[in-house]
């Protein structure tokens, strides 16, 4: 009888914990749904073709879009990728294929710390080494700041994907009398390419929404995209500015931009899913 009541209690406890875990999981999903739903409800009303294709207008004038800021975001992401992809990929290849175990763990540690540096500090850093010497906010400095955030992510995911290629592939290629670098480029990297692409996409999704480093570097621009050495607008920056403004029209636009940004990042994540699922087949 006593044993049975103990069993009953354990069963109750088990059931309770299961319910708690379920509730916690539901909260995770709920937060995502709330964010998506909230930005959708608030943003969709303002979203239109004009919003994407029109320049912004001064306060008071109705309408106006975020064409330049969308364009600016793409330029900044492109610029950051241009810097971060070669550096990150080569670092990842070095880590996975050429570094000794001690050196690799030291570099990996450094990369993980770099990935953990708060983005606002990266922004301040870019401000100090680029904005001040150049005496101007610029797209270039923002691209560098975003690249610094992107590099460790790209390097580490590239390394992880390269390590997944079985060692037997390296040995088979070595036994054919192929040199190390040709093996890496001809056998190992092609075998890891889906993982590498996934890592790049996730890094792009991450920097597309970064705001803090842009405040110190890109600044934002009311005159459209004027060149790499001039201030430039970006979607997250504009969300920040417009959402804090006292004008209801701008606040509306901030919601629409937020929705656009969420869709952009979500879209990248879905593409990543599709790419990595294709690999599993």
């Amino acid at each position: 009888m006593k044993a049975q009541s103990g069993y009953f209690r354990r069963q109750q406890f088990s059931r309770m914990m299961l319910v708690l875990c379920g509730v916690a999981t539901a909260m995770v999903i709920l937060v995502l749904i709330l964010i998506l739903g909230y930005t959708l409800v608030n943003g969709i009303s303002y979203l239109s073709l004009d919003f994407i294709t029109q320049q912004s207008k001064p306060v008071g004038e109705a309408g106006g879009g975020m064409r330049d800021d969308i364009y600016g975001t793409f330029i900044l992401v492109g610029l950051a990728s241009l810097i971060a992809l070669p550096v990150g990929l080569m670092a990842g290849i070095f880590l996975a294929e050429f570094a000794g175990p001690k050196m690799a763990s030291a570099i990996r540690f450094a990369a993980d710390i770099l990935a953990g540096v708060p983005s606002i500090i990266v922004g301040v850093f870019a401000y100090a080494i680029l904005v001040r010497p150049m005496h101007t906010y610029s797209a270039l400095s923002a691209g560098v700041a975003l690249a610094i955030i992107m590099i460790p992510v790209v390097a580490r995911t590239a390394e992880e994907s390269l390590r997944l290629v079985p060692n037997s592939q390296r040995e088979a290629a070595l036994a054919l009398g192929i040199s190390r670098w040709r093996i890496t480029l001809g056998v190992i990297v092609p075998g890891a390419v889906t993982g590498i692409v996934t890592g790049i996409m996730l890094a792009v999704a991450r920097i597309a929404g970064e705001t803090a480093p842009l405040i110190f570097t890109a600044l934002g621009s009311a005159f459209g995209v004027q060149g790499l050495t001039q201030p430039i607008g970006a979607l997250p920056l504009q969300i920040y500015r417009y959402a804090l403004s006292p004008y209801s029209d701008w606040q509306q636009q901030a919601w629409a931009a937020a929705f656009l940004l969420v869709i952009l990042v979500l879209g990248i994540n879905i593409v990543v899913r599709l790419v990595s699922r294709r690999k599993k087949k």
Partner: protein
Amino acid sequence: MINNMLGQNIKAGAVDGEDSGQLRPQKCILTVEQLSAWYGNRMAIQDISMGIGAQHITALIGPSGCGKSTFIRCLNRMHEVSEGGRVTGRVFMDGQDIYASQIDPVAVRRRIGMVFQKASVFPTMSIFGNVASGISLTRFWSRRRDLHDVVERSLKKAALWEEVKDKLDQPGASLSGGQQQRLCIARAIAIEPEIILMDEPCSALDPISTLRIEELMLELKRDYTVVIVTHNMQQAARVSDWTGFMLLGQLIEYARTKEVFTVPKDKRTEDYITGRFG
């Protein structure tokens, strides 16, 4: 250490015996002298000396962990690729020590090819690409037309051409296990090595595929020297000209296959081939 474990003097193995007429094949393509190999601090093979006969099939038999695979990996400088892999001793090919400091291991592997236990087809490449890889990945640029003859010749030699000639552009991984292993052999042949090392090439294959590869080895013997590591003693007896028996990192006996299997000199060899241990 190993001597103590066995409690007897292994040093007097067959290789160092007096009977010099039987010591090694008449015409050797490889001469191994006092080869020892380690993984970190652990010694895997100890003081092996032997000659590999040119255009012979040389079989290495012995229980698991006796160092057979390590030994043939030393013959094309693949052992040093393993973590902690270290080698002492000398291996002469045409009078040149392949472990001499000025020798590039990559160049050694061009002359001494290798086929592994598990068919290691490159999954991102087509059948054609796999066979051509040893050539295309060592040149700056190569046209398919130039590679085609080599690919066809290699696949024919590996007895795979008839089965794949209509689907050369399909992925190499789409073939069956036995076909994949023959694809690996074709890939090894394509770079025209002089010696082909085979590390238990049939252990993952069914009897029919095994038979095909054995026939293939006999075929290859005309142009190449083959060294095969095998767990299958019938296989060694069927295909090889010379057989070496290894135990605990040492070469216990090395002689003509017929002698090893009919009149083994060492008690341990006899015990092993009659199935009394191992």
